[in-house]
């Protein structure tokens, strides 16, 4: 576990960093784009949700692989908590996306949802991690739970390239960067990238804080439970 002092330092830096990012996200002038208007600023907040979810998924599968090698409780807990925060960010990404799309792509229609490849793959990720937690909850034995759920996490992760590379070829997309649409770099003003990239880093830092908190809580819970078991036996 990271030392408290270093944790505090990183945490406070993330606090300041994100406050600056949020403020800049509102204050920096942006190019006037039809349909998007001020909602273009959602780029700083909606898109990093997806990046952060992917980062959390990578952290989760990393600890699952570690658990399969070392069979320690901590890496299993870390995998589970990273997956939990990934669920949180994925859910926030998908809901903010629905709200944003409603007033831009689907403005004036009754459409809320569309099987866009990115929407679909985030929805699939949410289902996979929900299934992961259902699987976890079906075990009494912690050794078995760690081993089997880690195997599922790794197995599910190996199918991710299909979500990232195959799904976009099967479905049409309105997202930038999809086939026929201008790439992200072509439509994004350099001014906006000045806030966008720091926002990604900031949200990943926020993920790290939440994840570290949850891991500390789970380790504490574990140690309290073990102590009670030892005291009572």
């Amino acid at each position, binding site marked *: 576990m990271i030392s408290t002092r270093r944790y505090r330092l990183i945490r406070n830096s993330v606090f300041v960093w994100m406050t600056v990012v949020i403020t800049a996200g509102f204050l920096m002038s942006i190019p006037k784009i039809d349909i998007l208007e001020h909602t273009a600023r959602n780029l700083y907040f909606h898109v990093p949700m997806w990046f952060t979810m992917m980062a959390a998924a990578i952290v989760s599968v990393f600890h699952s692989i570690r658990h399969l090698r070392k069979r320690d409780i901590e890496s299993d807990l870390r995998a589970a908590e990273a997956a939990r925060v990934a669920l949180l960010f994925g859910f926030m990404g998908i809901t903010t996306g629905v709200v944003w799309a409603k007033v831009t792509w689907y403005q004036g229609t009754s459409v809320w949802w569309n099987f866009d490849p990115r929407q679909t793959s985030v929805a699939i990720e949410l289902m996979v991690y929900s299934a992961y937690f259902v699987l976890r909850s079906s075990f009494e034995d912690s050794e078995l739970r760690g081993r089997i759920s880690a195997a599922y996490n790794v197995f599910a992760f190996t199918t991710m390239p299909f979500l990232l590379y195959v799904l976009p070829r099967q479905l049409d997309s309105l997202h930038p960067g999809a086939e026929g649409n201008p790439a992200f770099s072509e439509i994004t003003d350099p001014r906006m990238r000045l806030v966008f990239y720091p926002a990604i880093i900031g949200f990943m830092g926020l993920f790290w804080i939440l994840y570290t908190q949850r891991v*500390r809580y789970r380790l504490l819970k574990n140690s309290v439970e073990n102590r009670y078991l030892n005291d009572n036996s």
Partner: protein
Amino acid sequence: MTTAEFASAITIVQDAQDARPSQDAEPGQEAPSGNSDGIVTPYDSVWANSNVPTQQPSGLEAALLKEDKLYTVLAVVLIIWFGILFFIARTDRKLDALENQERQA
């Protein structure tokens, strides 16, 4: 709060309530923010007919109104953000205390 201040505060509230269009009023006499104009009608910043004195926005208020009132959204988001930060920091402190307790046990 003195009694006099309290009384005047009540008067303002009552004035404000009086200013709302009463339910039995005839359709023609309703305030201009009727249904016919839809959401295009700008919201009044002050209740009609109330005795609250109006003034030119200045200072913080003027800042909040700039850019289609975008800065108001910034203020709201920042308040929420600081609330979350406070919450995270508090949880950290509680975890610290528990970890210390557990180490000693």
